[in-house]
């Protein structure tokens, strides 16, 4: 009898561990089952030749040294995703006095969790980040919603001073940019309770993807051909809703967005 109980306990423990075996981690009702593509990064863009770039980059390094950026990342993503190297003397090393500025920051307002509208105001990691940086430099800041693909023309026409969350794909030789402050990669996410634990489990199933990420999905043509169908959504909120409701079996999102929803 004792042996039977011990065996049963062992079996139950193994059963409990089984769902965790095939995934990296899971929280918030979702789990990441696989990485899909290489890393991509987020940058802050500035007008070509504008000294703002040096001051903002230096301020970011000083804030990273005081762990402020780490706390900010944990607040939004539940983990530290900021990869700026800390340097407590970065501003002093510039050898110039910080000028007084009032900056207009261009943001993409439909970009949860980086920048979005809620309660008649702007919220998001990027909003907090640039507010912290400008506050640290003693600068005033105001936000203006733009289409982030217009960042170059908006910056160089002088309509905005800073553009947030410019991804590698949007990097342009027409503007200067900060070191990458966040690194992300595309990942495949399923429901925590689902029996899909690896990429191969999605064979013949339905995958959800944001329209703007279609090109990322088609980087792996073989994987797409094996899928049952692909459902497109206009935004990541819709994607996670579809996953929660069972309309799709898995979704393809950036790891930053996944971290925010799984927090």
């Amino acid at each position, binding site marked *: 009898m004792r042996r039977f109980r011990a065996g049963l306990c062992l079996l139950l423990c193994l059963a409990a561990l089984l769902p965790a075996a095939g995934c990296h981690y899971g929280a918030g009702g979702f789990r990441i089952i696989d990485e899909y593509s290489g890393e991509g990064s987020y940058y802050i863009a500035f007008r070509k030749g504008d000294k703002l770039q040096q001051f903002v980059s230096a301020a970011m390094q000083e804030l990273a040294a005081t762990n402020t950026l780490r706390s900010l990342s944990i607040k939004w993503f539940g983990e530290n995703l900021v990869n700026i190297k800390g340097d407590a003397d970065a501003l002093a090393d510039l050898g110039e006095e910080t000028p007084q500025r009032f900056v207009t920051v261009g943001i993409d307002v439909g970009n*949860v969790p980086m920048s979005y509208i809620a309660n008649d105001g702007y919220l998001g990691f990027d909003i907090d980040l640039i507010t912290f940086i400008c506050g640290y430099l003693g600068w005033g800041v105001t936000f203006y919603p*733009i289409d982030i693909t217009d960042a170059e023309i908006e910056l*160089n026409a*002088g*309509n905005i001073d800073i553009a947030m969350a410019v991804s590698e794909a949007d990097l342009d030789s027409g503007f200067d940019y900060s070191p990458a402050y966040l690194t992300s990669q595309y990942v495949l996410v399923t429901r925590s309770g689902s029996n899909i634990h690896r990429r191969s489990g999605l064979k013949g199933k339905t995958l959800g993807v944001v329209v703007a990420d279609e090109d990322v999905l088609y980087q792996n043509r073989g994987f797409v051909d094996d899928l049952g169908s692909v459902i497109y*959504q206009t*935004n990541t909120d819709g994607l996670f809703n579809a996953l929660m409701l069972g309309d799709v079996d898995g979704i393809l999102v950036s790891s930053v967005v996944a971290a925010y929803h799984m927090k």
Partner: protein
Amino acid sequence: MELILQQMPVVIRSLNVGFLQTLRLFFVTGLGAIPLGLVIALGSMSRFRPLSLLTRFVVWVVRGTPLMIQLLIIYYFPGRVLNNNIWGSGEAGRFLASAIAFIFNYACYFSEIYRGGIQSIPKGQQEAGLVLGMTRSQIFFKITLLQVIKRIVPPMSNEIITLVKDTALARIIALQEIIWAGQSFLKGSSGIAGAIWPLFFTAVYYLAFTGVVTLVLGRLEKRLDYFR
């Protein structure tokens, strides 16, 4: 349906803010373009040849190119090419640039309507005025213009109704008018994402507004129908 009712107050509030911007742009354009159109019309009919040629050339360029391109050039050219951003940053600068582009564009269209109206008045009336000892300006303001106003109301109404819908083009330079507000719920705004129904509501705002404008202009047309 329940979800739409739940989201309705947030959407309506946002659409109202966008609609106010649309209204502002519409009225500012109307106030600026109606008198400027008359000035351009007089310029194009001037007996001073260089002035009339220049005015007609400008009208041809403005009417021959899309308003959207004019908006982009007016807004981005000073900062981008001349390194002098005269519009400043933020909503006010974008509104000012939009208003100038709209006023100039619509003034050119109105000028052709004015010109057609003025030239439709029989020459004999002008000659009769001169015989009676009236000056040219007296003839224009007391005889010609009064008849012109009556004649140009229907084509002007048409242009004004088009203007209501054209205000949506200001979105191209990120002016946050009503379509911007409606579309933001598709991408994600105020906790609502992927919702297409606010765009139908946006269309209802336009329909209601064009309805009111049509009624007002219809009444004006009737009031000016004093020759029948």
